[in-house]
């Protein structure tokens, strides 16, 4: 069992999807998602047009989690296998996670304003969780850039990324526990019932966001790697 996991962590060159192909696929998927979200899916019975933001909000949230988990995985690969590429990959994944995390906060805030009249709701678990995670991962960057580039910077970042991924469920549990104390549940949200087009639209939106995030990740990674290689070429 452990040997199988160890194999996974070994750096294997997956067939590398070319960057332009990836970018075009995310263009296609996002366009499809937008078409479904705005022109196909019927209005929500309770909240009307404004509920559509949820297709973005939820898919972006899941994408952010995926980025953080990916970053933690690469961090583990770095610490365990000493793969020289893993540190940068972990950093870029966390960076994308923070970008999408901020988008979660923005979309959630817009929804809160439209639905409940307040720009912020402490009763929305997902929103509070992303606030805590934003604080945590913002500190990631402070930590990383407070150390000179090298093995120590990589190790610190990797360990901190692992803490982050453990913090996600623990924080979520804490927020749920806190709700029982501080806010008797005042705002109830009617969950979407996944009939017909709603499920399809959500799945397409989720796929679109994941591919889009992966494209951005590859773009940033490629840019940074070219930077590094050029620097080395200049010295050589």
């Amino acid at each position, binding site marked *: 069992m452990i040997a199988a996991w160890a194999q996974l962590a070994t750096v294997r060159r997956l067939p590398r999807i*070319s960057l*332009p192909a990836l*970018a075009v696929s995310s263009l296609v998927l996002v366009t499809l998602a937008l078409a479904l979200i705005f022109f196909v899916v019927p209005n929500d019975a309770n909240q009307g*047009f404004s509920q559509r933001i949820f297709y973005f909000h939820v898919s972006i949230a899941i994408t952010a989690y995926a980025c953080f988990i990916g970053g933690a995985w690469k961090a583990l690969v770095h610490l365990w296998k000493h793969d020289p590429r893993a540190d940068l990959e972990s950093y870029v994944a966390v960076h994308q996670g923070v970008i999408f995390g901020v988008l979660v906060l923005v979309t959630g805030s817009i929804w809160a304003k439209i639905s409940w009249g307040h720009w912020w709701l402490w009763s929305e678990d997902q929103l509070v969780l992303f606030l805590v995670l934003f604080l945590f991962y913002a500190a990631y960057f402070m930590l990383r850039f407070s150390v000179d580039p090298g093995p120590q910077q990589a190790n610190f970042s990797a360990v901190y990324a692992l803490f982050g991924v453990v913090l996600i469920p623990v924080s979520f549990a804490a927020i749920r526990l806190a709700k029982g104390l501080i806010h008797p549940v005042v705002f109830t949200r009617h969950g979407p019932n996944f009939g017909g087009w709603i499920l399809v639209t959500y799945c397409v939106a989720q796929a679109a966001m994941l591919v889009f995030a992966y494209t951005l990740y590859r*773009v940033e990674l*490629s840019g940074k790697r*070219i930077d590094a290689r050029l620097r080395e070429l200049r010295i*050589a």
Partner: protein
Amino acid sequence: MTTAEKYVTGAYCAVFAVVLVYVVIIALKLQRLEREVDELEKKSG
């Protein structure tokens, strides 16, 4: 769709279109740069 809703739809579509086209352009540029750096590395050995 009301007028306001049309504006929101238009805004989302416009922003995403611009961002995604930009990403495609950057992706193409990066692919070219990667190839050039590969050649440079081969030349300098």
